[in-house]
């Protein structure tokens, strides 16, 4: 395992050395969050705290509100927050436009990455990385430096060289799109990575590549929020905490063993337990 060398690699980044890596900081704090879409309430009273260095998994059946939570954190406009608060390193996250959240290090790996015809991956990433650098007071990359940086990241997450010359996601297979999300994550070096069903539609080899990428990017100063339907991704990305989202509510939070129980008993177990307890 090359974990140690990767840590030193990351600590060369000026952004990360500002935090003391021995102390876990509260990064994201979600308090009593309720969200509606077009007047229909999807999330109820969500509470979640994520510290630096942690990996959290949110599991739940289809339609439980997992993606709504992810896109709310990323700042999509049509998510109406009706109640509650979200702070990011103590700042009110909900007031920030999505691009500012991104520049502050929040990354969303999309469940359905969109195609942008005619815009090459190189151009797209160069624009994104330089926007972020500008925000952090760093000079934009020169073309040569950028290409070098991109090559390093491509190797890091085993991303196919050919794909960066093509238009953003255009004609990519399902697996290629998901790998592209992880490649972009590597390029943007997020502080909080939210991966929305990144495992769905992946065969076992692709899943391993994606998970490897995530693990390589993990360190003491960032955090990962993995959203998944299935337990199998969590065989590769080991979470510190597992939360079960059911019917818009977090109904269970525990350590990584919860994922295994869920795998064994299925969501029916939650469904029964939840509907029994719901009457209280």
């Amino acid at each position, binding site marked *: 395992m090359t974990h140690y060398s990767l840590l030193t690699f990351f600590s060369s980044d000026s952004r990360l050395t500002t935090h003391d890596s021995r102390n876990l900081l509260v990064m994201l704090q979600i308090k009593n969050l309720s969200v509606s879409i077009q007047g229909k309430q999807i999330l109820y009273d969500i509470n979640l705290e994520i510290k630096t260095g942690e990996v959290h998994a949110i599991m739940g059946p289809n339609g439980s509100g997992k993606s709504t939570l992810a896109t709310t954190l990323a700042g999509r406009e049509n998510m109406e927050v009706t109640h509650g608060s979200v702070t990011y390193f103590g700042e009110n996250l909900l007031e920030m436009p999505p691009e500012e959240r991104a520049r502050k290090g929040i990354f969303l790996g999309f469940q359905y990455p*969109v195609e942008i015809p005619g815009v090459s991956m190189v151009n797209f990433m160069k624009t994104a990385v330089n926007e972020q650098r500008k925000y952090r007071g760093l000079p934009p990359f020169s073309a040569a430096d950028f290409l070098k940086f991109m090559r390093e990241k491509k190797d890091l997450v085993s991303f196919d060289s050919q794909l960066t010359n093509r238009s953003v996601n255009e004609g990519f297979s399902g697996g290629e799109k998901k790998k592209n999300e992880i490649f972009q994550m590597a390029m943007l070096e997020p502080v909080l990575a939210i991966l929305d069903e990144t495992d769905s539609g992946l065969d076992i080899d692709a899943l391993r590549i994606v998970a490897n990428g995530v693990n390589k990017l993990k360190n003491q100063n960032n955090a990962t929020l993995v959203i998944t339907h299935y337990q199998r991704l969590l065989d590769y990305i080991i979470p510190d905490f597992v939360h079960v989202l059911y019917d818009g509510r977090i109904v269970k939070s525990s350590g990584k063993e919860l994922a295994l129980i869920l795998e064994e008993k299925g969501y029916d177990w939650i469904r029964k337990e939840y509907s029994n307890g719901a009457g209280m």
Partner: protein
Amino acid sequence: MVTSEGATEMENNQDRIIHEVTQNEYKYGFYTDIETELVPPGLNEDIIRMISGRKKEPEWLLEWRLKAFRHWQTMKMPSWAHLKIPEINYQDIIYFAAPRQKVKPESLDDVDPQLRETFDKLGIPLDEQKRLTGVAVDAVMDSVSIKTTFSETLAELGIIFCSFSDAVKNHPDLVRQYLGSVVPYTDNYFAALNSAVFSDGSFCYVPRGVRCPMELSTYFRINAANTGQFERTLLVADEESYVSYLEGCTAPMRDENQLHAAVVEIVSMRKAEVKYSTVQNWYPGDKEGKGGIYNFVTKRGMCKGDYSKISWTQVETGSAITWKYPSCILRGNNSTGEFYSVAVTNNHQQADTGTKMIHIGKNSSSTIVSKGISAGHSQNSYRGLVKVLKNATNVRNFSQCDSLLLGDKCGAHTFPYIEVENSSAVVEHEATTSKISEEQIFYCNQRGINLENAVNLIVNGYAKEVLNKLPMEFAVEAQKLLQISLEGSVG
């Protein structure tokens, strides 16, 4: 990781672009207060005689103008385009306006400093030393050519590149042979009008076997008020020659509309290739649709010889109303015609633009790629004709017409006409209409790219296929122009 020198340079460059993108105003809208020689407004045979006389033209040319005028009087303004054109009173227009210069400048030092300054401000320095190497410019203000750069350098290769007036004076036989040979004065209303009153423009002749080593370009500037600009360009590429030509245009901001009715004729001989690019940025009018240029232009090329080629590339961002169909008559066997277009309309602009590919020669082929972008309250139409004549065997055509809509108050329309008289022809037409999706914008936002830059990125990606056809130096300009044209159209 980054050398500080390169970084600052890039930063400056970035800042400059950002500054340009965020400025809302049409940046070429200034007016040069220079003494101008005008003919009285109105249009009649005396005016035409006056224009011809002032230019000391030979008798045959005056006769040609008068024939055109008489024919024009029998014609009506075309009404088939998808445009709302307010009535134009042709007697109110001034048909000749010349910035007063004492003598025709022999060298750059003789050019009026105020005129030099005007073109400097437009980014078109007339000083050959300052000019991008590899680009020769003919600078035209109102009705006259101010200065043609690199004429001498080109002359060494036998290439004639000069103002139309000089060509009439110095190469009358060539002008007489080709003038009106592709666009006869009877062709249409605006071509007839132009033939009667045309003032200046550029002339280019590339001799047999010569590959023109630099980009040739004409920069058209309207300056005087209440005038029309009626320039004429004639390009002749002799056998096995090659030339790449670019035109750019701007005008001051005014509340009144001004008429621009130009004619461009291209002749491409056996195995010759002509690449003609336009970056059209006439004043489009203000946000409420007041003012702006009426751009009613006839552009046509004749692929006369076998294996000849003509390629049109246009980036149309300006003008209140655009009526323009750069076309190819594919007469030679195995000849090739191409049309690549990006037409942007914003606010209250209207554009009806496209092409005609007339296949006469056997094995001739044509490609049409049209990208329309509409925003604001604008209307953007593609109108194209692909015609295959009876004896033209094995013709191939591929047309792709895409429309991109920004917002829900604009319109995009496609009017393809296909007339095929030979059954061996393969004619393909593809059309798409799309909107910039909220998903695409959010995806960009999530990567740290704000709304405005996201739109620029997506629009430039959409238009890339066409922008790539422009000569390098101008592709960057064109990209920035797209950004400026769509300023404030989203959000």
